[in-house]
């Protein structure tokens, strides 16, 4: 079955769903069940076609070579190998046909790069395939879940329209074969995120600050703009440097460019700028502030956009540009440091939140930090693997919290929960499985991915023991705040108001079914990517299928290479090296494994100790740690800091601009208008309505012209 040439159709299914639902629902034609029938079908079709395409792709792309050679401008095929990734690309249409344009390059002698042809290029390789399956699968599940969650909402059709649009944009992002198409998706998901955060635009979101949901959406959007500015600068710098935005061509150019004078500093600059974009989209320090507020959106949105898919776009982008980062160690170092700091910093804030969704939000920020830590130390495979596992368990957690919120009178406050295990067993068990996974219990998926990242941060050539230490501390906190949430929500005495308690029951099947599927994924998905270090402990060989598939995409070419996963060949003598700096011994592996379990157990124990007995000890300790609690609960006062350092000066400048605009710019405009009017007032005197005078002027003009001609 030849599906690959039609991969560009995948984003079009949800786009069509968006158009149909968006227009027909607004016109009042589409009502009731037909809304989600259309929307879910659109999403499911995207999943089916994606699955078929990936299946087709896994069968090898060799058979498309003749197709590619028959239409070279349209199709491109790269047949991969051990170190070369297979890739299939289709360019649907020209977009920026700037071929033959002259660009001034950085090269000595200003060599000009002059073939900037950007088309609507969609390509599929292993990395895309992974993302494609995650996005469409989780996305479809969350569509299904939303049928139950959003039932009865007045904006039902609007919600599904946005959700479909988001799917289309996310798929465009993932499938984009060059940075510009990717950027379309990048901005598109930003837009959808804004629309969906502000979905309940007229409702208050944060009673402390009096912000509405619309404000939260705006905050997310503006914060993202800051990051996008860096992203755009990076992209433009890429164009100027390499004259192309195509990922294939970029990889080739970068791999070939390591010897040039500009390589290291310039690539580092580009890498940092692109990473600024990633910090915005993926909520990293210092631009993470929008994600906790993004919880203003409906919970399925939080699960889909702000946990599973969109926020991981930064990680995806970094992996996509891995060639660039391999050649820019400075940039990678920045990524690793920011990732590690975010992982710890967000975890501390998650500890002191009472809003269940905020706990999960900080958890997400923290987990994204781990992904960037992985990417920063060169463990791109592990980072992407964590992305996948995180998509499952975090989606499951969010949806579980949504299930709880929907039953508990739409409050997010964990102080009003408690003992829900009795009423909501399915929600409880799925939530617990996902918590165990994120906290890092041995065979579950979270352990496989997170601890691989930590291990690589310790042993990689790009790693450092300080990074590992910070990450491990974060992991302890992760375990703690997640079990804290479990105890506060599901165990102990129920603290809900009477009217809520009376109607407590399990969520409908359409929601719990999704939870079960996701929990199963969270539990078992780790087995497709068991790190070599772990499989060695139980006497197995290299069973890391995931790394096997993905490694060629993110491997560093032109860099002296070790094998995927770090083990294998010894490091060479090149300037840039991939792989492990130190090859861990068998004992070290065991030590790490046990340490990971210890970390898990520590968090669990602390949570049990503090919150186990119906939060008794936590209540007792609270006054003694009031200051710390306040600090953490108010998120280290970062929002206040931003308010003082960024917003206030910004407002001052804006006010100055306002005055300038009002007096100088408007003044100029008004002057022009007044001058025109004055001229008109004077000139109109000539138009006195007496035809004779017009004729006289005409005659005078004619005589003057004749006189000038004949002089």
């Amino acid at each position, binding site marked *: 079955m030849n599906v690959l040439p039609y991969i560009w159709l995948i984003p079009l299914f949800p786009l069509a769903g968006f158009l149909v639902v968006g227009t027909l629902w607004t016109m009042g034609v589409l009502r009731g069940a037909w809304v989600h029938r259309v929307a879910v079908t659109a999403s499911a079709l995207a999943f089916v076609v994606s699955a078929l395409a990936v299946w087709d792709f896994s069968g090898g792309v060799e058979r498309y070579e003749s197709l590619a050679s028959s239409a070279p401008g349209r199709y491109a095929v790269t047949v991969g190998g051990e170190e070369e990734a297979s890739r299939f690309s289709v360019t649907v249409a020209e977009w920026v046909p700037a071929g033959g344009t002259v660009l001034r390059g950085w090269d000595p002698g200003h060599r000009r790069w002059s073939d900037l042809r950007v088309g609507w290029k969609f390509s599929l390789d292993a990395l895309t395939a992974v993302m494609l399956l995650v996005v469409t699968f989780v996305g479809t599940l969350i569509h299904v879940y939303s049928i139950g969650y959003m039932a009865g909402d007045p904006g039902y059709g609007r919600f599904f329209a946005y959700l479909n649009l988001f799917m289309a944009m996310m798929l465009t992002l993932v499938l984009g074969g060059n940075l510009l198409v990717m950027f379309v998706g990048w901005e598109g998901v930003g837009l959808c995120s804004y629309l969906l955060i502000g979905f309940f635009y007229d409702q208050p979101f944060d009673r402390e600050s009096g912000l509405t949901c619309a404000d939260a959406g705006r905050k997310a959007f503006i914060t993202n703009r800051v990051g996008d500015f860096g992203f755009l600068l990076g992209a433009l710098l890429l164009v100027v440097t390499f004259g192309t935005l195509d990922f294939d061509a970029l990889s080739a150019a970068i791999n070939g460019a390591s010897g040039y004078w500009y390589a290291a500093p310039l690539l580092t600059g580009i890498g940092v700028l692109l990473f600024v974009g990633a910090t915005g989209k993926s909520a990293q320090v210092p631009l993470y502030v929008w994600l906790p507020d993004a919880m203003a959106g409906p919970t399925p949105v939080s699960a889909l956009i702000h946990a599973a898919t969109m926020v991981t776009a930064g990680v995806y982008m970094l992996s996509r540009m891995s060639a660039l980062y391999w050649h820019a160690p400075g940039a990678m170092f920045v990524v690793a440091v920011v990732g590690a700091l975010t992982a710890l910093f967000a975890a501390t804030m998650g500890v002191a939140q009472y809003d269940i969704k905020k706990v999960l939000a900080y958890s997400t920020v923290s987990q994204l930090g781990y992904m960037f830590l992985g990417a920063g130390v060169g463990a791109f495979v592990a980072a992407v693997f964590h992305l996948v596992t995180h998509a499952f368990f975090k989606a499951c957690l969010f949806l579980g919290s949504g299930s709880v919120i929907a039953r508990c009178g739409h409050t997010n406050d964990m102080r009003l929960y408690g003992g829900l295990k009795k009423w909501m067993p399915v929600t409880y068990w799925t939530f617990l499985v996902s918590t165990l996974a994120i906290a890092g219990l041995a065979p579950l998926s979270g352990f496989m991915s997170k601890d691989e990242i930590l291990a690589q941060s310790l042993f990689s050539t790009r790693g450092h023991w300080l990074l590992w230490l910070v990450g491990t501390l974060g992991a302890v906190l992760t375990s703690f705040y997640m079990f804290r949430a479990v105890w506060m929500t599901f165990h102990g005495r129920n603290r809900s108001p009477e009217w809520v308690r009376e109607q407590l029951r399990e969520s409908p099947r359409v929601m719990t079914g999704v939870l079960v599927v996701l929990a199963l994924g969270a539990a078992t998905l780790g087995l497709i990517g068991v790190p070599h270090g772990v499989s060695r402990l139980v006497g197995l060989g290299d069973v890391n299928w995931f790394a096997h598939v993905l490694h060629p995409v993110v491997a560093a070419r032109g860099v002296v290479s070790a094998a995927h996963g770090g083990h294998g060949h010894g490091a060479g003598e090149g300037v840039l090296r991939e792989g492990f700096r130190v090859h861990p011994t068998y004992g070290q592996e065991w030590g790490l494994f046990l340490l990971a379990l210890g970390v898990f157990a520590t968090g669990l124990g602390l949570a049990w100790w503090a919150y186990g007995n119906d939060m008794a000890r936590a209540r007792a300790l609270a006054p003694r740690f009031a200051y710390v609690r306040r600090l953490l609960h108010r998120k280290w006062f970062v929002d206040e800091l931003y308010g003082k350092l960024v917003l206030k000066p910004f407002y001052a400048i804006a006010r100055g601009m306002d005055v300038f605009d009002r007096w100088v710019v408007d003044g100029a405009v008004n002057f022009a208008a007044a001058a025109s009017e004055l001229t008109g007032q004077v000139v*109109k005197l000539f*138009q*006195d*309505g*007496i*035809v*004779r005078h017009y*004729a*006289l002027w005409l*005659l005078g003009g004619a005589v003057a012209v004749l006189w000038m001609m004949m002089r």
Partner: protein
Amino acid sequence: MQVDPGSVLVLSAILFAIGVFGVISRRGAVVLLMGVELMLNAGNLALVAAARVTPAGGELGAMDGQVLAFLVLAIAAAEAAVGLALVIALFRHKGSVDVDLARMLRW
């Protein structure tokens, strides 16, 4: 023996000037129209005279001037029809054909 086209052009200029003067110095709409007709005639005269000046080319010689004059003639007929209709409309509204009365639309 033939007429000197230069002298015809001079006559044309004089007639045109007279027409212009008529348009400028009179108030009656009908007289104004007649002044315009005089000017058109002067123009036609110049065209026909010019047809005599241009070198004879082709089978028919240079008839372009005469053809143009023909077209001007047709347009003059159209102009007179519309102009007179306007005069009648003006008369109906104002009870007079004084063009100075038709100045409601000035600035």
